[in-house]
């Protein structure tokens, strides 16, 4: 299922503006949105999900404007894991995942056996089965992230949008989440679009990257074309090292140059 952005512009009241973004996201894509803080990555995700309406241009899903779908229709095609997360209510993990079946059921119906089967399957896929009967409020951040991915999968979407799925996770859990997303992308053909801060992880796991800076799409393409010293220095500043990891052969980004605070009067 194709997702397409055609000359999309959007501005906030505070003056920040996303300027004429065009992107093609064909079925089965694995696209990372990268860029410095305030570059417009999350805004772009929210435009794709229909949460924000573009001022100019179009966001199309199956050649239809995203805004023309009913919430139910859209939820059957697209799952979104936003940065907004509430765990105040002690729902069991299984119940949280069952919410992903909402767009596939009628309001007055209880869960059908087909729904139960999907829930069992996504529990297995995300390895969330061991804590299926615990309240979500009692889980660690890594476990919660898996539950949210499981709930998104229960929607049986063609496209998944994720806003910083690696936030608050340690490096081990980050790796697990990225591997899981890659697997879902490869085995089920689900398009994945995600906002990422970690450039090295972005280069390692995404098949395509789109780099934004101050509301403008600087470049997009293979990680090897986007994460180059020239581009990264232009956007993030000169004190960043970009090199090819000799083991993975992927571009790697690290703090470089002068790491001590400059003392001003230094010779």
């Amino acid at each position: 299922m194709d997702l397409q952005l055609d000359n999309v512009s959007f501005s906030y009241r505070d003056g920040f503006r996303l300027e004429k973004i065009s992107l093609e996201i064909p079925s089965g894509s694995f696209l990372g949105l990268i860029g410095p803080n305030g570059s417009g990555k999350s805004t772009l995700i929210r435009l794709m999900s229909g949460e924000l309406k573009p001022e100019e241009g179009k966001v199309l899903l199956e050649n239809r404007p995203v805004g023309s779908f009913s919430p139910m229709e859209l939820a059957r095609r697209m799952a979104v894991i936003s940065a907004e997360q509430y765990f105040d209510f002690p729902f069991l993990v299984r119940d949280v995942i069952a919410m992903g079946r909402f767009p596939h059921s009628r309001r007055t119906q209880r869960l059908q056996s087909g729904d139960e089967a999907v829930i069992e399957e996504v529990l297995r896929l995300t390895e969330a089965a061991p804590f299926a009967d615990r309240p979500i409020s009692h889980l660690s951040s890594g476990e919660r992230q898996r539950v949210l991915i499981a709930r998104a999968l229960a929607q049986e979407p063609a496209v998944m949008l994720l806003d910083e799925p690696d936030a608050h996770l340690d490096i081990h859990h980050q790796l697990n989440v990225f591997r899981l997303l890659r697997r879902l992308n490869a085995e089920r053909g689900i398009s994945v679009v995600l906002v990422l801060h970690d450039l090295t992880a972005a280069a390692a796991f995404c098949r395509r990257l789109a780099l934004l800076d101050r509301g403008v799409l600087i470049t997009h393409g293979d990680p090897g074309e986007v994460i180059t010293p020239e581009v990264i220095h232009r956007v993030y500043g000169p004190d960043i090292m970009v090199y090819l990891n000799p083991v993975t052969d992927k571009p790697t980004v690290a703090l470089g140059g002068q790491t001590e605070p400059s003392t001003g009067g230094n010779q």
Partner: protein
Amino acid sequence: MDAVDSMDRFLVHLVHVVHLVHSAKEHPMKTRSATSLAILLLLLAATAVFALFMGPVSDASAVIIWQIRLPRVLMGLMVGAGLAAAGTVYQGVLRNPLADPFMLGTSSAAAAGVMMAGALHFGGYASLYFMALAFALLSIVLVYRIAQIEGKAPIQTMILAGVIVSLFFNAAVFVFFSIFYRESFNTLFYLLGTLTEADPVLIGISSVLIAGGLAVCWYLSRDLDILTQGEQTAQHLGVDVERVKKMLFTAASCMVAAAVAVAGMIGFVGLIVPHMLRMIVGPNHRVLIPAAALGGAAFLILADTIARTVVAPIEVPVGALTALVGSPYFVYLLRRRHRHGQF
């Protein structure tokens, strides 16, 4: 702090006992919910019987029991059920267990509507309910408008807006009171919350409105479950958030207006009951809404029995009693939130 701790421990024990009873029989989920609701129904029946026969022995003639106490029990049943269910719905939609018809200003607004209808001699049941519901809805819209930022209404500003709106309508109530009712002890009693209303038509209309509100909220219980995950998330899961929120607020406000029309402002039932029952039956609204309705009914009938017997033959307004219990409970919830990061 000690009080908070021992309250915590007591509730944890209570929850454990309930879970033990359930798990001993290896009930599947559905049976478990059914068991909880059955227990609550028994509790309600026992409370009602207790309320009917509680009082000085010489007074316990058939006339007193069936003509004075029975209507009060029925009033307690529907007002308690309505307030607790409305509280459950407000808490779910606002994702804040401190939300309560009282806190959001809905009760004050409905009372202002009732007072105005009476003060201006509009007369008739229709105008009384119309004013109560119109003011309750007006207060929710006001709370919403005040709280809205960039098309969204964040929870914190909404609670704050509720406090402001309730202060405003309280002031309106007291303006009407001082101009039109200053001689009337009954009106003061009504404002503090009481189940002494004797008009069967009033009781009948309120019962129908509360039953209707309950049905709408129960019908939307799955949407309400999903709304607790956040409004953006709910929208992405297929809930038509703005529409569902409007329907839930209207249904809940309708229950509050109906309760206030017969019983005045009885606070904190909608705060205490849903919170306790959420710990026992869990957060799924398909079970929680009927459980809160049954629990709220039992709670208010019991509170009213205490209110009329504790310093008999003098009677204490039941609203004052629930506030005496409710305010410390509110503090307990705040402290608990502060320490555990959750409710």
